[in-house]
């Protein structure tokens, strides 16, 4: 009725008593939380705690065993065009046979059937998004010729090209050196500010991300939880989560670090 009724952004994620079963085994349950739109959200948990299953539920590739899931206000699977996904291993096998710009273009037209010419507008969009992630310089190179950091930029560009409302990255910092880790985190922060997308990041090492995160989904003892970052960066919670003693260090300059001190 009123404008404010019309406008409120649907939460990025809304889970109500969700449980996930895979191969007959209960992975996690009692997932009840709402992730507001517009944040940078970490997804954390030990190996096998169900982070990948959560991503698959969000993408509609794995149905929730019970409970209700809403992604951007709709059932999962209906909004995939609005989600940009950066997998852990981006085009590692066949990068020899395709150029960076062709791969990005697939993010725009890869789901279209039948033959069709690439529009000028699509080409312009590819160039634009490559520039936005700092990958304009290697648009015509083969994917296989890229370094790890370049490849991650290209993967992010492909996820962004269709103007998603949500970006999901699976371990985007794994196997990157420190400089590239920092640059990718800065890139995510900038994209978040400029485009207003919600960013979900699966990460084992939170340290490089601590400066930009707003909140975290954590998978602990077979349950899924969500909290703002300040409440997640808690020594006893993190120690429990990682199964080893974690020490949180706040520097006078406002820096925030965690380290294993077990």
């Amino acid at each position, binding site marked *: 009725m009123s404008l404010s009724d019309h406008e409120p952004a649907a939460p990025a994620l809304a889970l109500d008593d969700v449980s996930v079963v895979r191969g007959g085994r209960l992975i996690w349950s009692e997932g009840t939380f709402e992730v507001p739109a517009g944040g940078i959200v970490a997804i954390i948990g030990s190996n096998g705690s169900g982070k990948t299953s959560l991503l698959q539920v969000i*993408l*509609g*590739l794995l149905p929730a065993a019970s409970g209700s899931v809403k992604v951007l206000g709709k059932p999962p*699977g209906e909004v*995939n*065009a609005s*989600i940009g*996904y*950066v*997998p852990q*291993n*981006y*085009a590692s*096998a*066949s*990068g*020899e*046979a*395709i*150029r960076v710009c*062709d*791969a990005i273009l*697939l*993010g725009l*037209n*890869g*789901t*279209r*059937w*039948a*033959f*069709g010419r690439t529009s000028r507008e699509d080409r312009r969009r590819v160039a634009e998004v490559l520039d936005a992630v*700092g990958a304009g*310089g*290697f648009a015509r*190179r*083969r*994917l296989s*010729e890229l*370094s790890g*950091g*370049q490849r991650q930029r290209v993967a992010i560009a*492909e*996820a962004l090209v269709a103007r998603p409302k949500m970006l*999901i990255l699976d371990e985007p910092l794994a196997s990157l*050196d*420190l*400089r*590239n880790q920092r640059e990718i985190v800065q890139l995510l922060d900038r994209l978040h500010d400029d485009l207003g997308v919600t960013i979900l990041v699966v990460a084992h090492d939170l340290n490089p991300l601590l400066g930009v995160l707003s909140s975290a989904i954590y998978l602990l003892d077979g349950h899924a939880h969500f909290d703002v970052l300040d409440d997640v960066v808690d020594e006893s919670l993190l120690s429990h989560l990682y199964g080893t003693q974690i020490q949180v260090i706040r520097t006078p300059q406002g820096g925030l670090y965690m380290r294993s001190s077990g």
Partner: protein
Amino acid sequence: MTTQVVAMGYQHNWWQILTSPFMGNALIGGTIVALAAGLIGYFVIVRNTAFAAHALAHIGLPGATGAVLLGVPVALGLGVFCVGGALVIGVLGTRRADREVATGTILALATGFGLFFNSLATKSSSTMTNVLFGNLLAISHEQLITFAVLLLVLAASIGFIYRPLLYTSVNVEVAEAKGLPVRLLSMIFMALLGLAVTMAVQAVGTLLLFALVVTPAATAIMLTPKPPAAMLVSTVISVISVWLGVGLSAMFNLPPSFLIITIACTVWLVVWVVERRVRPAAKTASGSDRPSAVGDHAHH
């Protein structure tokens, strides 16, 4: 003394041979097969299914020899086994490691059965040789029509699924996340590969097929990373190999399969050697992540 050691020599009437009806069929049939190989070859490489393509050719063998046993057309037996085998490999192979073992096992079993069926039908062991090495010169008018229809099916199908197929080939996880039917596309691709192999086996045979379906595509990918251009270059290499091969076979009375495959492989080898010399230079010229990068502390 040396002249008659091998039955090879320049045939002065080669143009007459080349323009005879059976050579005409060989040229047209070979061209259709080369077009089919060019269309599918790029995807065989991008999808890492080169071994499956090789195996499918062998899986056709019991189909062909079995067809002789039953008195049905050889091409039909080939087609049923190749497409059927392709679908089985598609179903089995979700994980690559599983697929390799399953494919190799089916390959060996199929070759064994091919030999067995052939031994039962003693009178026509020429079928065996034809399937193993191909016989372009024996291609009939009816086969040409079948080839043309299969090529149309192949081209229309690839045209329709081109972009989603490319997407799932290059980046299966992202394509799946976008909601593309990854498994269905994979099965369709395998069936199309089965069709292409059915045709190619009749031209160059089971044992030599790899060099007509996979090698030109590999050559093309070295020459250009643009997918449509690579498909075009690969098709051109296949077609030229077939034409030159058939032409030379008329000139020197040699088996066309041998010549076609030798030409395709030579082109590959030349491009491979040249590419090795040229490309490392291009790589180091733009090696670092960013030209303006600050010192790379992380590596030290």
